[in-house]
């Protein structure tokens, strides 16, 4: 461990090469670079997201978690997932909203200070996905709380989630 830290201090100035074999296309990368400016414009440097699992299969969550790994490292743009809705600008909801999570989702939404945004992440959150028609789900987040942005995909890849957030920010920059 100490060795690791030392190594990092000594080598600090060298550029860390992107791990071999990783794939992020130039178009995707260029989309991300102006993300910072947009966040600066709309939120004054930070966008804080509270993630709520409303009955997801958990793949959508793992893609959100992947956003914080060293490859996507979404925190460098000022975006982060926070522990409490009270600290959040946006609520990102995954899953078709199972009946037994409806109340908890509403409460989390209401606990988020206004103005608040709601992002429906994943096919399930959009319209129920594969679970559409089941007795125990509400078929989409919009049936429970108002939605500002939809990110389709099953699950949407980390890059798709980032571009979804960019689109939302774009919408907001135009409004200003």
């Amino acid at each position, binding site marked *: 461990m100490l060795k690791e830290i030392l190594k990092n201090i000594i080598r600090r100035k060298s550029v860390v090469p992107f791990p*071999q074999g990783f794939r992020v296309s130039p178009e995707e990368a260029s989309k991300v670079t102006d993300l910072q400016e947009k966040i600066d414009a709309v939120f004054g440097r930070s966008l804080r997201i509270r993630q709520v699992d409303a009955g997801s299969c958990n793949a959508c969550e*793992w893609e959100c978690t992947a956003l914080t790994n060293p490859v996507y490292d979404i925190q460098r743009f000022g975006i982060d997932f926070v522990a409490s809705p009270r600290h959040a600008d946006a609520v990102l909801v995954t899953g078709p909203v199972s009946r037994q999570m409806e109340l908890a989702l509403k409460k989390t939404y209401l606990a988020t200070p206004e103005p608040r945004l709601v992002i429906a992440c994943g096919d399930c959150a959009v319209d129920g996905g594969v*679970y559409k028609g089941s007795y125990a789900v509400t078929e989409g987040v919009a049936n429970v709380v108002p939605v500002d942005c939809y990110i389709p995909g099953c699950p949407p890849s980390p890059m798709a989630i980032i571009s979804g957030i960019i689109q939302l920010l774009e919408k907001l920059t135009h409004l200003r």
Partner: protein
Amino acid sequence: MMEGILRKAKRTAEQGNEVYLEVAREDFKKSCVFLYEKKRAFLRLMFAADERETGGEFKIYSVFSVPGKDRFYIVVLPVEEGSPTFPSITSSIPAAHWYEREIRDMFGLVPEGHPDPRRLIFHDSFPADSHPLRKDWSLSGMDKKEWGEGTAGKVPYRFMEVEGEGIYEIPVGPVHAGIIEPGHFRFSAVGETIFFLEPRLFYTHKGTEKHFEKIGFPEGVRLSERVSGTSSFSHSAAYCMAVEKAMGIEISENAKAARTLLLEFERLYNHIGDIGNMCAGTGFAVGYAKGALVKEELMQLNERITGHRYLRGMNVIGGVSKDIFRHRDDILSTAERATREYKEMMKLILGTVSHVERLENTGILSREIALKLGVTGVAARASGVNDDIRKSHPHLLYDKLLFEPHTMAKGDVFARMMIRAEEAECSLSMIDALLESNYRGDLTVGVRAIPPYASALGYAETPRGSVFYWVMSDKEGRPLRVKLRSPSFCNWPAVPFAVHGNIVPDFPLCNKSFNLSYSGCDM
């Protein structure tokens, strides 16, 4: 050896490795206990089916497997509609406790003598006397609305209360601090020490089993892939196996090899990710980041070879949809790189005393409890239970691969990490071995119509433990019943035992070491 029960059975049927023994009500418990106590059999799953359209009866199935034999003994008890009860076996076989409560919730069949009369799956606002898996069930619009609002309190759930000086309760969830699934935990603590934990789950109940009946067998593959995100492939492999058996088809060697390979891929990315995640539980950020990096690398490989990061869309009834052996070179070079990085990561983790120290002696699950509760997978093997479906019921190409299930004795968080580490290495060598040969046959074989009232059992070893699917067709060959039993359903009841006596701040760590799926459990 089974003469005793065989003689008692009113009717027996054998198909492949499944032996169905239909018994009379008074023999049901005796037969189950005989298998469990005398033959040391594992209770794999227990479920009911509404077969009233065939003979006016419900049926209860308890599936056992005896160690050392590739056979499933399935004790079947018909239950008449007029007297919807069956003898509970929980007092002798504790592993049955959740299954029996589930049967009561979903079918309205009452396990007589069950120690816990509370509902398991449905929360307070769900109407009493409403049982979704009955064929004639429906829910009124009003009931549905009230269920969603969650405030009606129709059948109040009583949490267990711990009394005594200095005991206080900490309620947590369903919405947690991190990016994890929802569940409610109620801790009764003395100072920092957890005295008792009661989890209240099933927030993510999505009516999956009923939904399977509605959408039909072919569409079911997509649904089975979405029961538990990180076990997408093993779930769908088990589901396809069940349906293929019911159809009476056998997939080609090529498809078998592909499925075996991808099952190991799934295990690999999960185990490495999980080891990294445990570092998050102790605040060891470097370890966490390394784990996440190797996992990401493997998931990108998944995407390159199958088109999906979670290996979805690969399994189809009758085989696999893509030829993954075309990507042999890519797989080999990525696996080699991942092995190197993974070894480095393990060296870092095991060399970090502050981290390892937190894992040792934390969250101990004893072998006795693990056996009694029917714990499966990594959690069972870390507690010294030598059970792995790949070995005990060899399927696909597992009988051609040389491997031994790893076990450890202590059952603490460290043991669960080390089992994962050993299995990850084992998976890597299996992947190598599988890539050495060429396999014959087409990707898919032709599917057939499923005969009326055919049933079959499918299974696989997910990264968390064994998963089972049992399917039965109706008169038209559509699904009459699809039972799914995910490993998390078996393992959740063990978590309170493992955290007892630990401090509250260690709970996330214990929880991560089990890494259970809420969605898989809640269905």
